[in-house]
């Protein structure tokens, strides 16, 4: 059994997912406690090699690198087949995968392939008596569950995006790059990627360090204008509650909550959102939460760190102006 912790590095057209570096940071911390190492797995098309050095700069000691046409676009089958082979040969004990859309697909599939356990959406990982223990929110974030994989190996964990700090890269770090070949040929892969449709405009909710969301209280699509302006001034992503999405005021891709996206930004500003439990499920692990609502009894104030009890059409523009003044 290896004391090397493995991390799968997600990329799209050579651009890495931030959650992968967060996973490297978590693995590095645990490896240092164990006196072990960190291995990164970078599997993509021709031209992803720079990610190997980047992974080393973030804390990997060695990188398993595959560059092949079958790995250009993310597909579970070739990724799982190659990752499972690398992990089997290394007798890996631990694998970390960012809990992005792709990571959430990959982790369980890998667990099936390796006949082991996968603990999803972890917000903390710690060593207790030699056993890696994961913390993950359950019941829409109302409870925290602590889970272990006591016997099966490797233990697979997906780390919630932005729940772990992204380490500072050190360009002076050095490591080993091990080239590996894909396991599946193109004819063995059932799924073919037909193409991509880019989301128009705005900052991605998943990657945003600041999110400004509007809810039923904004009253209509025009009500999102001051909310959107606040988001623009902050360089934030625009979010929405299910009520606002169901009403057709903003597209579904902005929805935060149990039936939308789960986010964990540094700052979450909820404007005109009452704070239904389903919405809280998607944002309650945000580091600082601000609520703007004219109803002082709104449940969001039980969760928020700071609140302004006032009409959002007064408070949000005032906040925008105050920010412009302070931030220049």
């Amino acid at each position, binding site marked *: 059994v290896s004391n090397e912790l493995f991390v799968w590095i997600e990329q799209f057209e050579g651009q890495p997912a931030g959650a992968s570096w967060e996973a490297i940071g978590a693995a590095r911390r645990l490896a240092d406690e164990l006196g072990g190492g960190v291995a990164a797995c970078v599997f993509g098309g021709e031209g992803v090699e720079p990610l190997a050095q980047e992974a080393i700069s973030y804390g990997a000691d060695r990188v398993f690198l595959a560059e092949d046409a079958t790995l250009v676009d993310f597909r579970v089958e070739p990724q799982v087949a190659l990752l499972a082979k690398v992990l089997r040969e290394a007798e890996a004990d631990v694998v970390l995968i960012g809990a992005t859309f792709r990571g959430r697909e990959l982790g369980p599939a890998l667990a099936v392939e390796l006949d082991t356990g996968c603990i999803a959406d972890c917000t903390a990982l710690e060593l207790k008596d030699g056993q890696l223990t994961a913390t993950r929110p359950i019941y829409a*974030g109302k409870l925290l569950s602590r889970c272990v994989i006591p016997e099966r190996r490797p233990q697979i964990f997906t780390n919630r995006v932005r729940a772990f700090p992204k380490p500072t890269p050190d360009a002076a770090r050095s490591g080993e790059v091990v080239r590996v070949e894909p396991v599946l040929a193109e004819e063995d892969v059932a799924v073919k990627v037909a193409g991509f449709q880019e989301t128009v405009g705005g900052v991605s909710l998943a990657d945003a360090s600041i999110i400004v969301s509007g809810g039923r209280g904004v009253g209509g699509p025009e009500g999102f204008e001051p909310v959107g302006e606040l988001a623009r001034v902050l360089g934030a992503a625009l979010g929405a509650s299910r009520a606002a999405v169901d009403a057709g005021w903003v597209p579904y891709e902005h929805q935060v909550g149990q039936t939308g996206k789960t986010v964990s930004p*540094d*700052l979450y500003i909820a404007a005109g959102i009452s704070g239904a439990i389903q919405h809280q499920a998607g944002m309650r692990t945000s580091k*600082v939460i601000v609520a703007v609502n004219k109803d002082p009894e709104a449940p969001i104030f039980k969760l928020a760190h700071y609140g*302004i009890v006032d009409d959002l059409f007064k408070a949000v523009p*005032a906040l925008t102006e105050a920010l412009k*003044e*302070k931030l220049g």
Partner: protein
Amino acid sequence: VREGEAEIIEAETVEQAATILVDKLLAEKVI
């Protein structure tokens, strides 16, 4: 995961409340 009560920003005007809030967010280093 947090359970508690928000610190409600009290001020004479909403503009003052907004300025106080921005100062708090700067102190929290989230903006």
